[in-house]
């Protein structure tokens, strides 16, 4: 299919349609309201359903009900809205339901700001809601990748019957880039074919989708069933990208999302201009985190330090430390509040980390 110039938010909407996900529930919030503004006319064209809910609390629960149908369902929101959905996400994880949630992050805490940030790493990767559960988390770095990962997210949600979250910052949503969609659009899942969805107790026992287990043995069993899924994800779903990795690297930078693109520019420039060689590891799955892969890169003898650069006050750095296991010093640099570090800022972080004066 020919390339199109599209705004990230609209491209995400079209990607969902392409994935056969035609059931969308949302509440307006900057910087992602364009998704609903796009899908409110696009979905009726393809026989889909869109409800502008009364709140994100309701959105989370509409997703819950809709997911019980076995069809593909999703929402898009931004940080405060995602906070309000956490109860429902926990319930959906407990009830083994596939759902895709897209968080176009803004700065926080509280009402925060509306500019790009990566402040929801903890919330996305460490649970967010109550209980022993995880969401699979994907982080795109471009509009094209937002499209590709949106399509992938639905496959993964169905495969694991688990919530999948995409976290992108406001830049992903607002930026226009050229994108390509697959030729073939997927049909909606046929609920009649599902062996778990609520499609009517006709000629079979009734089905119950629930998360309540008052018997501790049963709750323990369900929780470890979830844990097994997360172990399978760790085995099969880890995705990441390496950039400029060589034996000359003195520093290994870890960064995700659009921040990593700024870092690529900085790495190119500082290499050319100052002869400092820096490698980059960009996790694409934030949960499961490419921990072993990070360790393998970090322990290479040429690497002096590992530096996590984020648009937050330092969240992913805790995972980086965890996986580097003390083998190398781990540091953090970054800005938040909607400030996107420039390539010059990043070059400054790199020099500072390596103790180079300019």
């Amino acid at each position, binding site marked *: 299919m020919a390339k199109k110039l599209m705004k990230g938010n609209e491209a995400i909407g079209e990607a969902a349609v392409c994935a056969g996900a035609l*059931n969308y529930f949302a509440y307006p919030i900057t910087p992602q309201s364009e998704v609903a503004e796009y899908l409110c006319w696009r979905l009726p064209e393809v026989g889909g359903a869109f409800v502008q*809910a009364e*709140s994100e609390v*309701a959105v989370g629960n*509409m997703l819950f009900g809709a997911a019980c149908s076995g069809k593909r369902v999703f929402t898009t929101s931004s940080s405060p809205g995602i906070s309000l959905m956490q109860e*429902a996400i926990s319930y959906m994880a407990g*009830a083994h339901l596939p759902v895709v949630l897209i968080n176009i992050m803004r700065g926080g805490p509280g009402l925060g700001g509306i500019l790009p940030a990566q402040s929801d790493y903890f919330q996305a990767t460490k649970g967010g809601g109550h209980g022993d559960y995880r969401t699979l988390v994907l982080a795109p770095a471009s509009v094209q990748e937002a499209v590709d990962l949106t399509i992938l997210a639905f496959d993964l949600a169905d495969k694991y019957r688990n919530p999948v979250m995409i976290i992108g910052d406001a830049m992903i949503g607002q930026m226009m880039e050229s994108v390509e969609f697959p030729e073939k659009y997927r049909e909606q899942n046929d609920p009649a074919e599902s062996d778990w969805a609520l499609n009517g107790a006709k000629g079979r026992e009734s089905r119950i989708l*629930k998360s*309540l287990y008052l018997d501790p043995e049963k709750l323990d069993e369900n929780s470890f069933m979830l844990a097994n899924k997360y172990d399978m994800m760790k085995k099969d779903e880890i995705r990441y990208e390496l950039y400029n990795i060589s034996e000359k690297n003195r520093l290994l930078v870890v960064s995700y999302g659009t921040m990593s693109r700024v870092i690529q520019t900085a790495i190119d420039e500082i290499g050319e201009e100052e002869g400092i060689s820096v490698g980059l590891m960009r996790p694409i799955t934030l949960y499961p985190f490419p921990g072993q892969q990070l360790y393998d890169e970090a322990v290479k003898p040429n690497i002096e330090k590992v530096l996590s650069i984020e648009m937050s006050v330092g969240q992913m750095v805790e995972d980086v430390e965890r996986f580097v296991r003390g083998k190398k010093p781990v540091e953090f640099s970054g800005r938040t509040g909607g400030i996107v570090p420039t390539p010059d800022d990043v070059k400054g972080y790199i020099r500072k980390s390596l103790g180079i004066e300019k």
Partner: protein
Amino acid sequence: MINDATTIFKRPESLSETVTHYCPGCTHGIIHRMVAESLDELNLRERAVGVAPVGCSVFIYNYFNCDFMEAPHGRAPALATGFKRTRPDMICFTYQGDGDLASIGMGEIVHAANRGEKITVIFVNNAIYGMTGGQMAPTTMPGQKTTTSPFGRDTNLAGYPIRMAELLATLRTPSFIARCSTQTPMHIVAAKKIIKKAFRLQKEEKCFSLVEVLSTCPTNWGITPCDATQWIIDNMEPYYKLGVLKDPEKGEG
């Protein structure tokens, strides 16, 4: 003459054979039966999906022979919205207590009704939080003693009980809204008709329907089952008037 015997009363197909966990004298069981009979009579069981609340009736799915999902506290109308929009060909109903629907779930029920979601809501008003041990509900009567209003509901601090059926009937969107009760067989016969009509309207893809059912909680009211039915007559019925408040078939929609 055993061969000529005909069955005139049996368990509805929509009910399972599981013995309920409800306290003696609790009318949740009667309301379950009325819902099940309605599903049977309208031939809806095989395409019905219920949404269980959080409250004493959370285990409703163990007592029914149809598919069920279990909502977070108060959110059943949002789940029903999501499901019904995704599967408009199915029948979807919620079954909710008064803490669930009128307190924590106030937002979801008002907006589901206002959007005119084609779902059926069975709203069981027993003027108290049963499951958590008898705390004050938004529907608790003035002066009624509960574990969080031990001297009786003080309307200066807690306001007056919310009349959900009246509140929802003010919405402009067409809907079927009624209140019925369970205190005598006569009331139960009337309630059954209303509940069946609520499901019929959904079957005919007409409108949102909600039936508020006054129900007993002898355990947390601290009285006997017989006194509990009398308590509905003396205390609840004068305040929560029975009847159909809004009916699209009578031009009141």
